[in-house]
């Protein structure tokens, strides 16, 4: 072989690449997307942990103060309910994430398994955006808002009770509306991704 033949051989490889590329790229994109979805989930998870824990502690403090100093039955029960709700919120989030992590671990490392893992992650994320799931996850925030308002009216007795009622209503509606909007946004983003993954899976299974 001379130098020119060497160059010819070198150039010829461009016309017939050495490897199939699609599966690699697919895996790469999948991993990237999974990391993205996981980042969002992690952020939501820690926001829930932090917000839920703070609210649970605050509600517990109110509960303790009411129980020690004033002993009114209704407020004490409300504060106890708040504490339990926030603790349950954090616990439920922890349990839900653990269950999903266990589910994901069941998948192997082949490309198809990787797609299934990603689908499971997206299904999980979508399940959190359903109407009932949304209510369940955001109800504690609404409860927190109402309890804080109630507490403020108990301290400041000069304000009109109707004003407080409307204020509470507006805040709860804001929580529900912003949660619904966030959910719609997630669905808009995740539904096509799920569809795309299913098509890829079909294509992959069809080619085998």
């Amino acid at each position: 072989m001379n130098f020119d033949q060497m160059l010819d051989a070198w150039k010829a490889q461009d016309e017939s690449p050495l490897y199939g590329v699609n599966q690699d790229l697919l895996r790469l994109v999948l991993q990237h997307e999974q990391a993205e979805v996981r980042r969002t989930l992690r952020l939501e998870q820690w926001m829930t942990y932090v917000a839920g824990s703070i609210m649970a502690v605050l509600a517990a403090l109110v509960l303790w103060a009411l129980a020690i100093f004033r002993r009114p039955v209704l407020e004490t029960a409300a504060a106890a309910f708040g504490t339990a709700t926030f603790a349950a919120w954090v616990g439920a989030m922890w349990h839900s994430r653990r269950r999903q992590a266990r589910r994901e671990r069941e998948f192997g490392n082949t490309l198809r398994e990787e797609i299934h893992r990603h689908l499971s992650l997206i299904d999980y994320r979508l399940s959190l955006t359903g109407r009932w799931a949304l209510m369940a996850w955001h109800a504690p925030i609404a409860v927190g808002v109402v309890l804080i308002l109630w507490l403020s009216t108990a301290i400041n007795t000069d304000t009109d009770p109707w004003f407080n009622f409307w204020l509470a209503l507006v805040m709860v509606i804001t929580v529900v509306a912003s949660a619904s909007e966030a959910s719609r946004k997630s669905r808009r983003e995740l539904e096509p991704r799920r569809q795309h993954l299913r098509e890829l899976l079909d294509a992959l299974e069809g080619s085998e």
Partner: protein
Amino acid sequence: MQDGERNRIFEGWIEAHKAILFKVARAYGASHADREDLFQEMALQLWHSVPAFRGDSAASTWIYRVAFNTAIAWRRRERKHGKGRQEIEAASSLLAEPAVRDPRLEWIYARIAGLGEIDRSLALLMLDGFSYRDMSQILGLGESNVGVRINRIKAALAAQLAKEEHDEL
């Protein structure tokens, strides 16, 4: 830059220039699993690099630059932490090796593998017909330095060729 636009550019690059990534992966990865790993790493870095591309140079020049930087960093990391590769290799069937191998290419890649990190990059660029100026831009070397190194690589390759031809006789 929007994700859709970024993905469009990335896919265009891969479609048009995937051969660059294959060549660099083959030149820097010792085993099949290494190449696959490196290929993915280069593609990922390329995706990350899309917003930084200003169009001052040809896409192929940019892709080579990203690929070399990734490959050199990857090799250093692999040398430090690389272990358990055999299991991965055994389990890996994503990249099918070519059914027909060109012995001339095998020879070229074997010679390239014997070079140092920078010379290896230069050899690839030389074989792809890049000018000294492009090479110096891609690798951040002075043009005269590129010239000296390229001449040395060519001389080494020519000597190898001559020696093997002589041995065959």
